[in-house]
């Protein structure tokens, strides 16, 4: 009925909107809520047949337990994950900055072809390369070393890192560079004094992307590592699934602590992008 658009009509619409939004957020966040609450429940309460939303008795025991190396190997996995992810993403970003600069600013033969070839990586997902990479890593004598995962994570993130940086660099006005060159800076100095500071937000977000890929990797870690002292968090925690160490509260506490670094890094990179430039140079 084409009724008059009254005030109460609008109120109703708005109420519907907020109820819908609340429902959406509830579904999106429900697993996180369960994760958090279970981490604070006692072990017996976690496996009660009448599950409750909130713990009857709150406990911090699981958070203490996961950091006790005598009962739970979490710290080893955490150290390995930090070591692999930090090293791989720093190296990947470092190499990518120069590659992306060459592709976005320099004129040379095959530039377009090389640029286009980086888009091919979407077709070469990691899973397709497991057999040859496993053979290569074993051939280099790197099987069951953390170095193997670092190298593979660098390469797995490098093409996307170059593509992302390339599009950030495109947003930096070329005039700035020309001016700097007139002032006597050479190309390499231009990269360090102009490009890197101006695309700092972009570089951080690429670093975060690389870090997340390495932090998440289960596939390669599961085929490269055999001894548990090398395990990163995903393989390590997964390997505990059917052992006596498998206490839900502990696993949930471990899940939360595993997620925190990534969520913080992501939040930092988001705030940098929004604060730095109007559009942040993010395409898509």
């Amino acid at each position: 009925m084409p009724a008059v658009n009254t005030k109460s009509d609008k109120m109703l619409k708005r109420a519907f909107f907020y109820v819908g939004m609340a429902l959406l957020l509830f579904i999106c966040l429900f697993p996180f809520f369960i994760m958090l609450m279970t981490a604070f429940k006692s072990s017996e309460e976690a496996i009660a047949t009448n599950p409750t939303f909130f713990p009857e008795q709150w406990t911090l025991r699981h958070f203490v337990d996961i950091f006790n190396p005598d009962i739970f190997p979490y710290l080893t996995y955490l150290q390995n994950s930090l070591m692999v992810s930090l090293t791989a993403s720093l190296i990947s970003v470092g190499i990518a900055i120069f590659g992306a600069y060459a592709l976005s600013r320099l004129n040379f033969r095959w530039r377009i072809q090389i640029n286009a070839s980086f888009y091919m990586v979407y077709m070469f997902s990691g899973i397709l390369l497991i057999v040859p990479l496993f053979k290569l890593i074993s051939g280099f004598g790197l099987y069951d070393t953390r170095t193997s995962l670092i190298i593979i994570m660098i390469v797995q993130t490098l093409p996307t890192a170059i593509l992302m940086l390339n599009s950030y660099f495109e947003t930096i006005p070329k005039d700035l560079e020309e001016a700097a060159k007139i002032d006597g800076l050479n190309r390499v100095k231009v990269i360090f004094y102009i490009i890197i500071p101006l695309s700092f937000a972009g570089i951080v977000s690429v670093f975060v992307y690389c870090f997340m890929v390495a932090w998440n990797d289960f596939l390669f870690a599961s085929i490269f590592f055999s001894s548990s002292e090398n395990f990163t968090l995903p393989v390590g925690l997964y390997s505990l699934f059917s052992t006596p160490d498998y206490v839900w509260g502990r696993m949930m506490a471990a899940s939360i602590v595993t997620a925190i670094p990534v969520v913080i890094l992501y939040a930092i990179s988001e705030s940098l992008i929004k604060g730095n430039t109007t559009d942040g140079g993010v395409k898509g």
Partner: protein
Amino acid sequence: MFKAKKETSDGKLALILLLPSALLILLLIGYPMLSNFYISFFQQSINPNLPSEFIGFENFSETLGDAEFYKSLGITLLYTLLVVAGSTALGLYVAILFNRPFKFRKLARSLIILSYVTPSISLIFAWKYMFNNGYGIINYIGRDILHIFDRAPLWFDNPTSSFILVVLFAIWRYFPYAFIAFLAILQTISPTLYEAAEMDGANIWQKFKAVTLPAIMPVMMTVITLRTIWMFYMFEDVYLLTNKVNVLGIYLYETAFAFNDLGKASAISVILFCIICTLIIVVRKRVNLNASS
């Protein structure tokens, strides 16, 4: 433009700057991909001390004659279709909801993308716990409170309910990617276009078809293409969640590392690669893969 002047003078510097990236990518992506083709002609086990034997196209004929392969292909195609459709549609719908000012919009946006940002392994444990047969809260709510089902579906033991579970998980986990992409492009559409359409008497659906859809089409094609590739190759999410849904990623992984048959696994890699290549060639003209990050 200054370009013409230094057409070739950058060549040497470009070579130096690109060399590390190019070498690493050639050695650890390009070469492995080619060696897949080579390995696929051999009977080869994981143990490098065992001799490998040239067997021609046997790995391919074995794979293409394996009923398990077709079953896995069917499951993967259905999984990909459902997840791509579900996550894209939901992402678009939520983006449209967000494309207006409201209280706590920024906070809500951050909360929505939490599932996309959080590591798989953390989410997997929460889902495994929630859907546990004995004490999981989903079965408790569904059976004892809402009475949606009388007997709890064995989420991790029954192939059908496991399949539903991995599809739901993937839609929940990946729709924020589509959401972010759509929201960014929606915010570039000028409100005057909608006003003009309104003046012509367009209803919501007509406005969507005439204004929104054409504007978001390029982004939609990119989102769909990339998500299709990623879901088609999916391994980790499904493998970590259940062992009852044998997608191609798992079929390939197990052929190599559970059944110790590297040659056949390489043949499967080559076949999957060809399928995705065909897809890319088909959509190449219309999709700008550049728009992703």
